[in-house]
């Protein structure tokens, strides 16, 4: 034991917090008491930035995941049709009418539907693709459906996400990785997809040379209880890697931001080395930003204590997955900081690729699940140029232990400095979802978008999603659409 660590413990004794994370049970916000009470959203249970008020726009939505506005400024909400824990429902595009009624504009089964943007008379919709592979779809006013891209690699942990429609005629989208950190393992069996797609794995966007790191686990794919599997990076479960082995890059690939023309055509690589690039948005300065979820402490190669990230997307750049976290190389990081307490030292899976990644624009709290974002463009709302980001909230203890619930809020971030503060967060004992503090506040914010005038910030709240003894369960019809309005605006 290092002397420094020992001294640290003594200081902690003095502060009264010694060794907490090692001994207490996880305190995630999804770990609520069952049964869950019916949801009754109440703005008074949410603390918002002084000078602003919160309103309920619509409720009883099932797993809503995104929002956009049509030519007439009407809110159109996307319902994902899927909850972790493998609850398959129907993906729906739903217009919220002035009287609160809902009109279904489109529906489908290739869920989860993860995002939508309206532009020039068309809806650009992302089908996350757990069922049939990810798709980018254009839906015209007449309801005509055109598939712009398909067969995106979405059978794993993370899906196809986005979109952000650029002024350049392209639809930009994110593709999450198949696994936590590059290696298919028993965690993927527990999530359910390894059973459905036993040969699925991560696909690099460019050629990678492997270091030959392999991971031994039980083999749930065979009947024999003693059977073991040895698995390497970017390979199917139970396929071992060798040092110097080259995995061919291809597009579409995992952990990337890609784009396709609004008229269809080939999918092009924009940048890669992300983990779960979820929310994409062009800032007023024309730059593209993406939120990205950091590693979890799970599976064959668990990683501890890394943030979620906001990145400025530079064309052609590699952002570090699966060997960097927070912009730092994990195997040489100071104090071995990304290695879990009882885990093995994290070694690199690939020999160095391209240039090292840049520093993130901002770091969100560990396990906060940074998702949708938008930028303020109007002085009437304030904070022009700052990003507003939905924090879906932790999925502890599935993703790792936390001492307190993390996320379940909307933060604002200055992209110039990375400084962030809560903009809307539940009142009460700590930052936990309504289902846990039994109030009427926020559950799981998943998207935020300004109305076309830029005066009101809409918050898509996915609804109740509980993690109980490793079983994840979503509750249908608990989704809420909120908005934040500055005091001066009606």
């Amino acid at each position, binding site marked *: *034991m290092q002397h*420094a*660590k020992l*001294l*640290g*413990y003594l*200081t*902690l*004794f003095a*502060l*009264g*917090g*010694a*060794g*907490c*994370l*090692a*001994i*207490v*049970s996880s*305190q995630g916000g999804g770990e609520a008491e069952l049964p869950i009470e019916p949801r009754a959203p109440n703005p008074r249970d949410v*603390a*918002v*930035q*002084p000078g602003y008020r919160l309103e309920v726009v619509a409720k009883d939505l099932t797993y809503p995941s995104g929002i956009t506005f049509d030519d007439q400024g009407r809110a159109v909400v996307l319902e994902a049709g899927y909850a972790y824990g493998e609850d398959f429902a129907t993906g729906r595009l739903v217009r919220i009418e002035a009287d609160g009624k809902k009109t279904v504009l489109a529906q489908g089964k290739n869920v989860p539907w993860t995002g939508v943007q309206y532009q020039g008379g068309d809806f650009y919709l992302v089908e996350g693709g757990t069922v049939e592979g990810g798709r980018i779809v254009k839906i015209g006013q007449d309801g005509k459906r055109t598939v712009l891209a398909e067969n995106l690699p979405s059978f794993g942990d993370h899906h196809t996400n986005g979109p952000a429609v650029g002024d350049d005629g392209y639809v930009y989208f994110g593709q999450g990785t198949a696994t936590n950190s590059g290696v298919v393992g028993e965690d993927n069996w527990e999530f359910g997809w390894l059973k459905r797609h036993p040969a699925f794995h991560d696909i690099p966007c460019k050629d990678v040379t492997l270091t030959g790191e392999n991971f031994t686990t039980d083999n749930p794919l065979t009947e024999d209880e003693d059977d073991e599997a040895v698995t390497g990076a970017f390979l199917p479960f139970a396929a071992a890697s060798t040092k110097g082995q080259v995995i061919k890059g291809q597009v579409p690939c995992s952990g990337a931001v890609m784009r396709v023309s609004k008229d269809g055509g080939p999918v092009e690589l924009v940048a890669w080395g992300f983990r779960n690039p979820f929310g994409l948005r062009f800032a007023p300065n024309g730059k593209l930003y993406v939120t990205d979820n950091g590693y979890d402490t799970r599976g064959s190669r668990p990683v*501890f*204590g890394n943030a979620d990230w906001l990145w400025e997307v530079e064309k052609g750049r590699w952002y570090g997955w699966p060997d960097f976290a*927070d912009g730092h190389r994990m195997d040489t990081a*100071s*104090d071995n*900081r990304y290695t879990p*307490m*009882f885990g093995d030292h994290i070694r690199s899976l690939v020999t160095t690729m391209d240039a090292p990644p840049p520093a993130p624009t*901002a*770091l*969100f*709290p*560990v*396990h*906060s699940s940074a998702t949708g974002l938008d930028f303020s463009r109007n002085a009437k709302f304030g904070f022009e140029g700052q990003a507003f980001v939905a924090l879906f909230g932790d999925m502890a203890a599935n993703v790792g*232990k*936390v*001492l*307190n619930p*993390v996320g379940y809020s909307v933060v604002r971030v200055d992209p110039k*400095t*990375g*400084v*962030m*503060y*809560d*903009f*809307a*967060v*539940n*009142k*009460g*004992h*700590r*930052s936990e979802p309504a289902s846990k503090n039994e109030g009427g506040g926020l559950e799981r914010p998943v998207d935020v978008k300004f109305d076309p005038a830029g005066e009101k910030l809409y918050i898509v709240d996915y609804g109740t999603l509980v993690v109980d003894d490793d079983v994840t369960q979503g509750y249908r019809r608990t989704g809420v659409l909120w908005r934040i309005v500055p005091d001066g605006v009606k």
Partner: protein
Amino acid sequence: MNKMHIVLVAAGATAVALGVACGSQQSSPPVAGAEPKLDTAELKHGEALFMRNCNQCHPGGAGGLGPALNNKPAPKGAIALVIRTGPGQMPRFSHDDLSADDVDAITDYVVALRNAKSDAEEMAAAK
């Protein structure tokens, strides 16, 4: 189990024996819009450093992956010592990671966060 883990478990057991509060009781109510007034360049610097190095585990000074920092009157020296020693699962920040001035700026900012929170709570109570 290696030596470090033994010490850790022992530390944990002692903390429990002493009735030391872990987890929920260590947390503190989050406050929206209670960001500290930062009137010096040093405090601004501390804010930027905190956001890069600490906020991910102690969001806004409240609890997250790590314990809350804004609910206990820890002296600045103790905070600095924690930064330099990295107890438990907290990473240790060496002089290569953060200079002495950086640590000073961060600890000043942590104190400012703490004060902003108690001010906000007083205002809420007065309402």
